[in-house]
């Protein structure tokens, strides 16, 4: 079997291991070396890849719901989309959701994902009451912030390297509409963009699409979109059928010019200055989910998403330098997403910290990794870090500099023999 994740790079030979019972999973863990749990493969690079992958997605039973507390108990293979499908009509939404709903709850915990409300609500771990995880020794451990704080801090953001998450209890948030009042702010340059983020930081949801190819005075221009749920009682949410792209687009479809045209179109679409829209959950939170397997537009060779974050103090200069480097390289991105984040949490490998994060796509081509190395260097120099769940290239040195708790994480893994069982291509590359 070939295995790959969302970036379709790398593609490797692997064995997909299915388990029907906990006993069967225990045997798999006992018998095999170098395993890694696999959710829905929406990580971009090699975090979920190794020669043995454990398929968790088929384990998708809902286990219980406490209406009074808004506490939902599900198996780790349940997709966020399944939660929305059944719970939005009943007036519940995820407290934290990333930009796609097609990820598993296990994957959401393992990457400690975040969304447009990070500056207000933090990471996915904030909504977790507790979970069960199967350890390297095949034991099922009940994990919560209070009872097993180290395991909690290691597992949330721990990229599947502490065990297989089996089920979790998560808090949902009450909503009274499937619509969001959105304000779109069009800015002319990076300075305006930063000012806009600051002045709208009380809005619960915010994210910006930035035009990476703009040069000179226009560098850093963006569309900032902020919003909050309406209160109109309209909750008749249905999952829409995805449109599909029927074939692997040839790689050349995404050359510099098409990217530029796309950026211009999107950027050109919004009216000048500030405008208001009423949009639904899928348009606001999950625009990319509208098209099934849009990752194929980058062609057979695949692509990667480069996402880094810089502390507030160095964000402005750092971003300027990075945007300049990218636009000089002529390698551009379909999507570049900029966001102001809130404070870091205590989890050892969680990505977010207070500052600005940029995420952009690059199709796989010659010279890409040396460009990424160059960007890494700027990120490190500005005391930033790289998001593991997107990464496919970062070096051990760059990675370590960004994550101050890495030694604690390593020691914890060693002490609990996790490093003898759970490894991904990524964990081997960055030595964790």
């Amino acid at each position, binding site marked *: 079997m070939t295995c790959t994740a969302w970036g379709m790079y790398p593609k490797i030979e692997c064995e997909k291991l299915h388990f029907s019972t906990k006993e069967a999973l225990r045997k798999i863990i006992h018998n095999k070396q170098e395993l890694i749990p696999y959710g829905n493969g929406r990580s971009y690079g090699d975090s979920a890849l190794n020669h043995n992958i454990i398929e968790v997605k088929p384990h998708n*039973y*809902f286990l219980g719901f406490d209406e009074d507390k808004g506490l939902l108990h599900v198996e780790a293979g349940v997709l966020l989309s399944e939660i929305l499908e*059944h719970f939005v009509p009943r007036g519940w939404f995820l407290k934290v959701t990333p930009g796609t709903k097609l990820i598993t709850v296990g994957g959401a915990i393992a990457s400690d994902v975040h969304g447009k409300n990070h500056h207000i609500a933090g990471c996915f771990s904030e909504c977790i009451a507790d979970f069960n995880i199967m350890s390297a020794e095949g034991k099922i451990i009940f994990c919560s912030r209070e009872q097993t704080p180290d395991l909690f801090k290691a597992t949330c953001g721990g990229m599947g390297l502490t065990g297989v998450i089996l089920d979790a209890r998560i808090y949902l948030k009450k909503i009274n509409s499937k619509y969001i009042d959105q304000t779109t702010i069009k800015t002319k340059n990076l300075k305006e963009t930063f000012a806009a983020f600051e002045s709208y930081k009380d809005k619960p949801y915010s994210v910006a699409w930035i035009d990476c190819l703009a040069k000179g005075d226009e560098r850093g221009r963006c569309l900032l979109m902020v919003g909050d749920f309406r209160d109109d009682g309209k909750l008749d949410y249905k999952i829409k059928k995805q449109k599909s792209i029927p074939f692997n687009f040839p790689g050349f479809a995404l050359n510099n010019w098409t990217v530029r045209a796309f950026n211009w179109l999107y950027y050109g679409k919004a009216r000048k200055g500030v405008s208001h829209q009423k949009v639904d959950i899928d348009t606001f939170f999950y625009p990319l989910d509208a098209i099934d397997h849009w990752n194929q537009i980058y062609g057979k060779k695949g692509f990667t998403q480069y996402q880094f974050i810089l502390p507030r103090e160095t964000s402005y200069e750092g971003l300027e330098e990075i945007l300049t480097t990218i636009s000089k390289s002529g390698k551009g991105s379909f999507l570049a997403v900029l966001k102001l984040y809130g404070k870091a949490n205590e989890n050892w490998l969680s990505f977010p910290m207070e500052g600005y994060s940029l995420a952009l796509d690059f199709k796989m081509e010659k010279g890409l990794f040396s460009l990424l190395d160059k960007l890494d260097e700027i990120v490190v120099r500005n005391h930033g870090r790289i998001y593991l769940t997107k990464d496919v290239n970062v070096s051990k040195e760059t990675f370590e500099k960004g994550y101050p708790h890495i030694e604690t994480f390593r020691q914890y893994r060693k002490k609990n023999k996790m490093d003898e069982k759970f490894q991904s291509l990524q964990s081997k590359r960055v030595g964790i």
Partner: protein
Amino acid sequence: MSYVLIVGAKSDIAKATAREYAKNGYDLYLAGRNISELENLANDIRVRTQKEVELLELDILEYESHHSFYEQLEEKPLGVISAVGYLGDQEKAQSDFSEARKIMDTNYTGVVSLFNIIADDFAKRGSGFIVGISSVAGDRGRKSNYLYGSAKAGLTAYLSGLRNRLYDARVQVLTVKPGFVATRMTENMDLPEKLTAQPEAVAEDIYSAQQKGKNVVYTKWFWKYIMMIIKIIPEWKFKRMSI
């Protein structure tokens, strides 16, 4: 009336179909052997949809029990869906008649026994739907699985006759013909990825065809055309082929 009865409910296609019907507002009777194994699924569906789910023990080969099985349902179902099936071991069945018989009885005789009873009730009532999962294997006998195929061919013909009989009573009869589906039945087979459907996709097709009042549905849809071609190959040619 709000219940749909699904027999052979432990099948992967049936489980996905159960979720599909509950999602669309139906309560469920799920019937099969050792049905308590479905306790977790029943709970899953209740948590997801707040619909009622009842589990009922049923062996399709115990024909004598079928009457009392149907009698016990206090609220009669709106419709019934059978996913009962047994692929069996073709080679073994060629020399061991008990295997051949199990294939025939599970796929054909047992389903007929139960559907006869339900059809009478629906006919009297003048409403309802009956969905039988047959197979593309019933469209033409092939050396690799003609015992299974012939039993499914029997089921297809039975459903066609039943549809004809119940037309005036306004009871819908739907024949479902899946191609390859990734389920427990096929887990050890090396199926071509592009032609193999997931149970969830099959369940959506079943639900949508039933709601639209269709008679026959191939799932995935392209099997209609694949089988069209396989059916027009002349017998003198077909007998020499290995497909």
